[in-house]
């Protein structure tokens, strides 16, 4: 692994990959990250002005000083030499410029949908569709309730047939794991029929 590294005591670093957990505010993104992560979800806060604007624009923008975008994330060690990170995307639309950065290099995404207000995740679905980033939809049944079958939700979200829709519970580890596996299966299905990718 760190074979290119000439120094002796330096610990070999694992490969890393990431998946985004997206969806509207309060749909259960952080809950899902926490359910599958091997560590309690971590959080970083980025000053909004730094993340979004040129620093030269900052001078004199006093009221923006303490505005931050929080990013929650968790970790799953897949193997000694491979670690998967899960990033909950910031929910508010005005922070979407951060999504672009986050999406770079991601395997794909889970869009969580609150079964009681699916419209709060429309924008997230749109984001990944427009960029052709593979995603699956996890329908978080609050209180463990799933009043609608997956196919009905697919229709109401106008999702194409190749986007898996799973009923899930963001609080349950196994349920969240199955959503992640559905995403990986979709990625595998995308790769397999094409021996040499067109582009």
């Amino acid at each position, binding site marked *: 692994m760190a074979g290119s590294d000439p120094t002796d*005591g330096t610990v070999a670093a694992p490969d890393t*990959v*990431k998946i985004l957990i997206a969806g509207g505010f309060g749909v259960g993104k952080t809950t899902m990250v926490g359910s599958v992560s091997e560590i309690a979800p971590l959080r970083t806060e980025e000053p909004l002005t730094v993340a979004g604007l040129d620093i030269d624009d900052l001078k004199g923008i006093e009221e923006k*000083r303490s505005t931050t975008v929080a990013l929650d994330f968790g970790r799953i060690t897949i193997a000694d030499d491979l670690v998967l990170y899960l990033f909950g995307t910031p929910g508010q639309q005005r922070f979407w410029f951060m999504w672009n950065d986050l999406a770079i290099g991601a395997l794909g995404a889970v869009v969580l949908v609150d079964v009681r207000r699916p419209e709060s995740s429309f924008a997230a679905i749109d984001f990944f569709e427009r960029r052709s980033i593979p995603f699956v939809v996890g329908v978080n049944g609050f209180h463990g309730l799933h009043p609608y079958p997956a196919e009905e939700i697919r229709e109401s979200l106008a999702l194409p047939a190749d986007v898996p829709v799973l009923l899930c519970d963001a609080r349950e580890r196994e349920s969240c794991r199955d959503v992640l*596996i559905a995403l*990986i299966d979709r990625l595998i299905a995308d790769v397999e029929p094409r021996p040499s990718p067109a582009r």
Partner: protein
Amino acid sequence: MSGGDEAGRLVRPFALTGGRTRPSRADFTLITTVTTVDPPPERAARPQPEHARILRLCARPVAVAELAARLDLPVSVVVIMLCDLLEAGLITARPPRPVTATGDLDLDLLQKVRDGLGRI
């Protein structure tokens, strides 16, 4: 960089970076893994306290996002410090597995992730 008496939370972290707000190189993504070089290069200068903290935390490989969370500093600030440490030869940076959105994914990698998820 702040002339005011009450340096806000935006301004203060950049005191650690000598006022710089842009990294000098683009080696560090959120999931780039950082590892302290052991032993350190012989001619390395004595690191500043925040740098020394990073070197301690990265004795075992740590992803940039995780490092920022543990330091309670914005990623953008941590990355600037990491650039200094990288240039001084005190850390190594392992980039994430390359992934493209256009069906160029490595099947072995995906299978490995799937197997790993199946075990949790």
